[in-house]
């Protein structure tokens, strides 16, 4: 028993393990084989292209390039430019995705980056932009690129940040460009580095994210330094010092210029040292800015801008959109939850951009973007990652018609005085450039990098909003400022906070709008300015407050060092842009619902198939409907090679008490289990009242059984167990004959105790009682005498005899001869899985009327018996004499013996069964 359990368990454990591994790791295998990037090899041609260092110049610059070729050519081309500080390999992923979508993709390292030679000119028209044009020329000459006309390839240009600016500058100067996707890029480089959110006239609020774009901005020093460091050589060569450059300030700049061109270096030096721009620098940056050419961009443009971007905010995309639309170009705008502070467009967005390019260049599919869509950051998931939803509207407000709806929020807050500390120290912290996205994921980290200083900020707060206010774009506000004492530099930093009911403030997008005020009158009279705050997308939830902070310092910027004090108040409401849009992903997931339906339908189908198969499973032999049990050549062979039952055949008639006799391991229990439909035979049939026994066959209801061990719910009492069992049969309660069964069990009051307190014998009796519930036509008992004491065994025999006498049938198995002899009317002897002998107990016990006599003088007795007429086959066996009486009454034989002077100790039928059985047992042991 113990061993069997352990064997089952270990096999079961294997099954369990196998299933777990199959499910959880099987998919991994699929993924590993499916996700292998080498399964679809792309042809990549790498090389260098020589271009003139300047128009008409003999000097050459060498650009390293990669050309990704799709499976099928000719195909339209995409020129992919990298971001600042990167090289051609930075865009390998994008290039592969595009090439796999069927485009010829040209990537390259811009001048001064990667292994390309030349100096960084920040997308100078005659340098980097001319290089891009040369690459387009080369693509036009290739046979594997689709042409729109001679020398005019069908081409799109895309890139992020620095590359995005190149795409605009190229599209504005080269009409061959058929579509462009500038990502997180700028409109005006001067405003990108030295923004000024102030506007002396009222801000044009028709579009959602207007910028102030006023001259004389505040230097975004942290970002500036970050970018400058990317243009430096890892090691400074001492040779540089030998080549002095004529610098604006007569300073030798050679060693500090890195790979920047001289004019860029000069401009940088001026900005970094003074925080301002001279005429020359402004002129330079203006030629380097897309704003200089956007009026000439006519190709369809997809502007992708980040909502987490303190470098180039939403106002730059807004300006690009306005200028290109004014020039007649077709513009679509996407604000995504990322940017220079957050993430690069994710796989989903990149995939849609590829679809957009297919739509534009191949005329395939539908336009995957609306006129305007933006991401709204939603709740943080339990995993801690922010969730975003995308909403779409069919026009970018203010581009063609209409204007942006602006919610007016009146903020409370009196006039407050703020000071600029001497040296600009300490300075408020609004975030960490380039890291804000990551820091923002954990609020305590964000709180470390967010600090406003007392005395340096004035705050103005709205009341709690009574419904979600979804700000999308740049809010505007009119500010009144006057100087207290000397006017100072007139620099302020405006931020919009989301303040929750607990008082926790969040700075959406870490966005700061720097303001350089017009000169303030020294007499303390106020100046009013309109300010376009930084563009954000932020749902101000029900009960939250919008708080405007006007601060004098910010570490991200070059904070003025001259001490000053200002009186600050609001001259009007804050106007928050609202762009009604519908969620993109809110469409019902039809495919998944269909899948769920399909799964349910498949399950229903399986159920129907199972039911139909069951219904057709009936098999009745009409000749045997009155025979309780017929077993025919029954075989059970296990895969392990053991044959437990081997061609067993016997039959039980009505009214019989049949004893199934055999030593342990003869196959009795296996036979009974097959009879109950618990084990499927490997051969032969069992018919009960003519019906073939299969698992769950209805005819089993005519059998009451007790096989091998009792099975009860330990937490119920004996009576409750019998009731629960009968309830499970679903048959009427009055058919159970529960009281009779209980009487047979003879448990007395113990019947009301929990079964787990029972002894082995009590369980045994209860199990027999359970088998008799409903008085089944065929009662099957496996070793019923086990665990019973002699009086109980005796009582059991009476019960079984009476049971059979009522026309029912009993099948009892036992390994004890005496048990079977005394209980059964018929016997089947089983050994090694087959029948050895079968018949009535008398037939087998005293086959042919043989009798045995135990006598004191066997020789004399034999003679006396042989003399009795009719008696034959007299045989002496030790102290016993056997003889076949042939109808002579046993009493006459005894009288003859006594008459011959033999003392008879005992007389009775000869025990042949015992001989046979002992022989079997001996063989078996």
């Amino acid at each position, binding site marked *: 028993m113990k061993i069997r359990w352990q064997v089952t368990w270990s096999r079961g454990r294997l099954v369990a393990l196998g299933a777990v591994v199959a499910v959880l790791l099987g998919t991994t295998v699929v993924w590993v084989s499916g996700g292998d990037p080498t399964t679809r090899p792309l042809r990549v041609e790498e090389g260098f292209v020589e271009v003139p260092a300047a128009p008409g110049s003999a000097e050459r610059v060498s650009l390293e390039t990669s050309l990704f070729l799709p499976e099928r050519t000719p195909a339209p081309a995409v020129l992919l430019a990298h971001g600042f500080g990167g090289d051609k390999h930075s865009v390998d992923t994008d290039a592969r995705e595009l090439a796999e979508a069927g485009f010829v993709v040209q990537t390259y390292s811009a001048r001064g980056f990667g292994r390309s030679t030349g100096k960084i000119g920040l997308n100078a028209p005659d340098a980097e932009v001319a290089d891009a044009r040369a690459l387009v020329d080369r693509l036009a000459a290739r046979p594997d690129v689709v042409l729109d006309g001679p020398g005019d390839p069908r081409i799109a240009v895309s890139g992020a940040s620095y590359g995005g600016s190149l795409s605009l500058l190229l599209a504005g100067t080269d009409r061959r460009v058929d579509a462009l996707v500038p990502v997180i890029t700028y409109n005006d480089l001067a405003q990108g580095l030295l923004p000024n959110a102030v506007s002396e006239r009222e801000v044009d609020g028709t579009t959602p994210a207007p910028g102030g774009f006023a001259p004389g901005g505040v230097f975004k020093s942290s970002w500036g330094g970050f970018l400058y460091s990317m243009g430096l050589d890892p090691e400074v060569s001492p040779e540089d010092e030998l080549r002095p450059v004529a610098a604006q300030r007569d300073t030798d700049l050679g060693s500090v210029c890195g790979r920047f061109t001289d004019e860029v270096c000069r401009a940088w030096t001026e900005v970094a040292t003074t925080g301002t721009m001279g005429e020359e620098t402004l002129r330079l940056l203006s030629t380097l800015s897309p704003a200089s050419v956007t009026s000439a961009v006519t190709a369809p443009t997809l502007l992708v801008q980040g909502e987490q971007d303190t470098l180039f905010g939403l106002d730059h995309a807004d300006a690009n959109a306005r200028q290109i639309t004014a020039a007649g170009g077709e513009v679509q705008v996407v604000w995504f939850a990322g940017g220079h502070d957050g993430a690069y467009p994710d796989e989903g967005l990149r995939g849609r951009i590829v679809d957009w390019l297919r739509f534009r260049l191949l005329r395939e599919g539908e336009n995957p973007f609306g006129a305007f869509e933006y991401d709204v950051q939603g709740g943080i998931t339990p995993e801690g990652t922010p969730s975003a939803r995308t909403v779409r509207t069919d026009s970018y407000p203010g581009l063609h018609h209409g204007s942006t709806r602006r919610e007016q929020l009146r903020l409370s807050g009196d006039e407050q005085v703020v000071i600029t500390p001497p040296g600009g120290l300490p300075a408020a912290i609004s975030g960490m450039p380039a890291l804000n996205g990551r820091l923002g994921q954990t609020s305590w980290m964000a709180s470390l990098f967010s600090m406003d200083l007392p005395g340096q900020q004035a705050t103005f707060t709205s009341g709690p909003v009574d419904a979600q206010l979804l700000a999308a774009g740049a809010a505007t506000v009119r500010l009144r400022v006057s100087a207290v004492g000397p006017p100072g530099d007139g620099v302020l930093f405006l931020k919009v906070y989301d303040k929750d009911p607990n008082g926790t403030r969040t700075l959406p997008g870490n966005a700061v709008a720097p303001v350089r005020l017009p000169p303030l009158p020294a007499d303390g009279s106020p100046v009013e300015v309109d300010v376009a705050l930084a563009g954000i997308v932020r749902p101000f939830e029900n009960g939250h407050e919008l708080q405007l902070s006007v601060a004098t310092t910010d570490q991200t910027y070059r904070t003025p060092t001259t001490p000053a004090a200002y009186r600050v108040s609001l001259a009007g409401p804050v106007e928050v842009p609202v762009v009604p849009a519908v969620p993109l992903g809110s469409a019902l997931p039809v495919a998944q619902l269909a899948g769920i339906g399909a799964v349910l339908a498949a399950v229903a189908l399986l159920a129907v198939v199972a039911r139909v198969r069951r219904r057709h499973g009936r098999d009745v032999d009409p000749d045997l409907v009155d025979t309780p049990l017929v077993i025919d050549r029954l075989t059970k062979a296990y895969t392990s090679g053991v044959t437990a039952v081997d061609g067993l055949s016997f039959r039980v008639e009505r009214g019989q008490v049949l004893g199934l006799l055999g030593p342990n391991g003869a196959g009795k229990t296996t036979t009974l289990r097959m009879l109950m439909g618990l084990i499927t035979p490997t051969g032969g049939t069992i018919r009960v009242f003519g019906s073939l026994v299969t698992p769950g066959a209805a005819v089993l209801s005519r059998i009451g059984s007790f096989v091998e061990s009792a099975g009860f719910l330990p937490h119920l009492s004996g009576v409750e167990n019998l009731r629960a069992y009968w309830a499970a049969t679903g048959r009427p309660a009055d*058919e159970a004959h529960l009281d009779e069964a209980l009487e047979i069990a003879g448990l007395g009051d113990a019947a009301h105790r929990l079964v787990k307190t029972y002894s082995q014998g009590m369980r045994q009796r209860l199990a027999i009682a359970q088998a008799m519930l409903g008085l089944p036509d065929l009662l099957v008992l496996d070793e019923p005498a086990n665990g019973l004491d002699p009086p109980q065994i005796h009582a059991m025999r009476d019960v079984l005899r009476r049971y059979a006498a009522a026309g029912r049938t009993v099948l009892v198995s036992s390994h004890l001869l005496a048990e079977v002899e005394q209980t059964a009317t018929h016997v089947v002897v089983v050994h090694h899985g087959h029948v050895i002998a079968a018949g009535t107990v008398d037939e087998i016990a005293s086959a042919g009327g043989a009798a045995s006599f135990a006598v004191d003088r066997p020789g004399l007795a034999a003679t006396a018996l042989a003399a009795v007429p009719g008696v034959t086959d007299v045989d002496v066996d030790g102290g016993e004499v056997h003889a076949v009486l042939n109808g002579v009454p046993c009493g006459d034989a005894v009288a003859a013996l006594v008459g011959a002077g033999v003392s008879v100790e005992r007389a009775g039928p000869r025990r042949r069964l015992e001989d046979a059985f002992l022989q079997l047992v001996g063989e078996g042991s």
Partner: protein
Amino acid sequence: MSEVQDIDAVPGYRSSRTLRLGVELRRQLRRRRTKLLLGMVVVLPVVLVIAFGMGEEPDPDRRGGTFADLAVVSAPNFVVFGFFVAGSFLLPLVVAVLFGETVAGEASWSSLKYLLSIPVPRLRLLRQKALAAGALSALALVLFPATALLVGVIWYGVGDATSPTGDAVPFGTSVVAMAITTAYVVVQLSWIAGFTLFLSVSLDAPLGAVGGGVLAVVLSQILDSITALGGVRDYLPTHHAFDWIDVFSTTVDWTDMANGALLSLGYTALFGALAAWRFARKDITS
């Protein structure tokens, strides 16, 4: 199941009346284990409330910082938090226990053979057992948020469901969201039901079946935390376990929940079919 085949049977026997749901539920409900499991899901919210009460006053600067800090804001938040802490282990365990014991439990008592000899047709027995375990699981999964909501209302009061970023859902709507969440959790955890049912049929030891189910949950969670696995994680049965969070927002995106429901039902159907296939052919030796 049909009347036709029952002509072989004794009068009064109908296979369609064997082991009726009420009978099976009564068999299970009287077990101490069932009462213990149901008691546990009722007691857990109370324990959580007491645990929160014993902690120090939350630091105002850090308030709203973690999911746990949000739990004490309002009753709906408390329910959401409860689902979050119980969702990874306790609720799967409840389902695993109830389903793991279905067949293996009877086998370990040796009572399975007597049920099958009644006879309760094998597939019917499996179905009735699964339905009863399913009903008890659903009861536990409903009792848990119901108690949490009750306890939450008493301790923290009626209020909006707020997320860490301040996405606020009014109380009335959040009750609907909680109902949807409960329904989703029931569907989502069904894969464990299917899987442990399969184990329960394959093993004769109920502990093995329950343990195997819990092992699968833990293994799936571990694999799910390995981001390097990328897209394959979408097919892990526990991947969508917490996607019900989508329902607590102003505009509900059903995509992830539908994915989770489809995936779970797929696994449930697969393992359920395997369980039925195996049980119909198995030799009962216990």
